[in-house]
């Protein structure tokens, strides 16, 4: 019998953010090469921030991502607040959460409806769905627009917030704006019920590989925002300033983005990782959604990340409603504001839509940055994706090339990678 050679090279995986390739070479079922190459240019954000003042840090670092810029802003501001000893008021935290969950919703909706659903429905992009599922596409657009508006009402626009400062918000939303988005969020419950019903009918590829999962942890709520520690499915909790004791980032030859590991090897971050760490803290409606999607039966299946995003979107709508109602129950008060820089280190740990996000800043006495480290979700997942590849391929290597390729692409897409954000592999030390 002739040798069967598989040579799959997916140049620029589609429906992900940024540029990455999949390489698989195998002969008679033996894998010779299998990797996820990250070819997006490195962008040197951390080096760019060195020497910049605290009030520039947030505006530079949020440009790391054009999708989750509010998460980057949030984490950056939390790092500054941690360094300078600033405690924002309950009002500020409540309003920030509205914008934060708005971004979580818009990012998740974009992924599960536009990027992942076509795979699960067997079409190449969202456009054929307009004919076959017109109500779903309109629903997706309606949810995305509402999520954008949740951000805009609080922080000025739906990305790259212009109204977000350490300690406060420089603009208070009008009551009418809050009432408008509140009413639309309540109405969106029906849309999310329909989204859950749709995804409950879809079949995930059959694959399991147990791995460690890390997520931010908060004692009183589902860990997303304002977290103090990192929780592992292995049972340990790491205080946020000590994250380097848990997470080690390293460079590999075939990727412009760093990889990461813990003492147990590769690990997962993102919606499914959060669900695995903290599902008991989800809103009851989100727990119902998880039950409808049988998510607990797929905890070791990375393709189920998409389902976890649907569940979290239900949760984030409930959180947005909760904090909008908090704000509508009182008269919002303008807060006097000042920032006194001081030398020292501050760390922000939150969840970006794609997973655990850390900003670690050290300032001098004038409030200028002397050290910056940003740990990005997609970087942390890359190592895990490759381990998934190696577990997946032996089980599917007898299938036609096209099927193998699609399953590998779908796996990468399931992690919802944001490759542009991840590419900052080079450590640059500037001596002044």
């Amino acid at each position, binding site marked *: 019998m002739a040798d069967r050679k598989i040579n799959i090279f997916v140049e620029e995986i589609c429906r*992900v953010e940024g540029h990455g390739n999949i390489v698989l070479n195998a002969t008679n079922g033996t894998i010779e090469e299998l990797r996820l190459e990250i070819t997006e240019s490195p962008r040197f954000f951390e080096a760019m921030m060195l020497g910049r003042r605290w009030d520039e840090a947030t505006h530079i670092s949020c440009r790391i991502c054009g999708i989750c810029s509010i998460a980057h802003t949030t984490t950056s501001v939390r790092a500054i607040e941690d360094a300078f000893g600033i405690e924002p008021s309950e009002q500020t935290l409540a309003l920030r959460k509205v914008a934060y969950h708005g971004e979580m919703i818009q990012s998740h909706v974009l992924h599960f409806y536009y990027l992942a659903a076509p795979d699960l429905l067997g079409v*190449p992009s969202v456009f054929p769905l*307009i004919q076959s599922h017109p109500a779903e596409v309109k629903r997706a657009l309606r949810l995305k627009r509402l999520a954008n508006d949740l951000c805009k009402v609080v922080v000025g626009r739906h990305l790259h917030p212009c109204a977000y400062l350490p300690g406060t918000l420089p603009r208070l939303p009008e009551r009418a704006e809050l009432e408008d988005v509140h009413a639309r969020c309540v109405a969106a419950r029906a849309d999310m019920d329909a989204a859950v019903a749709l995804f409950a009918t879809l079949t995930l590829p059959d694959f399991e590989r147990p791995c460690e999962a890390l997520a931010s942890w908060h004692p009183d709520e589902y860990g997303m925002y304002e977290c103090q520690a990192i929780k592992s499915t292995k049972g340990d909790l790491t205080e946020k300033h000590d994250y380097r004791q848990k997470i080690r980032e390293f460079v590999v030859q075939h990727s412009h983005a760093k990889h990461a590991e813990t003492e147990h090897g590769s690990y997962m971050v993102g919606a499914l990782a959060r669900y695995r760490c903290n599902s008991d803290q989800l809103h009851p409606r989100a727990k119902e959604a998880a039950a409808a999607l049988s998510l607990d039966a797929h905890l070791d299946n990375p393709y189920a990340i998409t389902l976890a995003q649907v569940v979290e979107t239900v949760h984030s709508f409930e959180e947005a409603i909760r904090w909008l109602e908090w704000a509508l129950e009182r008269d919002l008060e303008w807060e006097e504001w000042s920032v006194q820089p001081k030398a020292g280190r501050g760390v922000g740990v939150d969840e970006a839509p794609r997973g655990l996000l850390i900003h670690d800043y050290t300032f001098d006495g004038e409030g200028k940055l002397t050290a910056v480290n940003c740990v990005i979700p997609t970087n942390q997942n890359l190592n895990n994706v490759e381990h998934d590849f190696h577990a997946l391929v032996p089980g599917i290597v007898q299938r036609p090339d096209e099927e193998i390729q699609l399953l590998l692409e779908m796996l990468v897409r399931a992690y919802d990678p944001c490759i542009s954000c991840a590419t900052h592999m080079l450590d640059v030390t500037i001596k002044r």
Partner: protein
Amino acid sequence: MARRIVVLGVGNELRSDDAVGVLVARRLASLDLGEGVEVMEGHTGGLNLLFDIEDADWAIVVDAVDMGSQPGQVEVFEAAEADVRVVERTASLHHVALADVLQLAEMTGVDTRVTLVGIQPQLTLPGEGLSEPVAAKLDEVVELVRGMVEDALESPPPETADGTDKGRGGAAES
């Protein structure tokens, strides 16, 4: 009910002549175009550009468009009449093209009239600043769009078959 007109300048300011739509919008924003007219910088807003135009009766979209003509050439055309197509495998929603947005708008039943003001670029490589032939047309495009808006505000709104102002009556959903 007053018509709502949106002027949307799109493009990437870091890609030479691709900035022209944004620069036109910025100039128009400093002029008083009249009530019911909103000028927006769409930049590389991707899918979100749909939300900028879908509530308007008329959207004038200004963008660098490769029409295969002389750099600086200006063409005005109705999106409904143009052959706007997208490739099947959309590479990334981070970079959704205007063409995708217009197709999505059409296919999901958005009834905004969309007029494109296209300027043929010379160069769209990374870089700041317009090429000489495109820069030379900036004032002309600003005046062109201002004229289009003024003419529309002076003329009565187009009548639809049932005699109502186009589709804005009952739908309060924003």
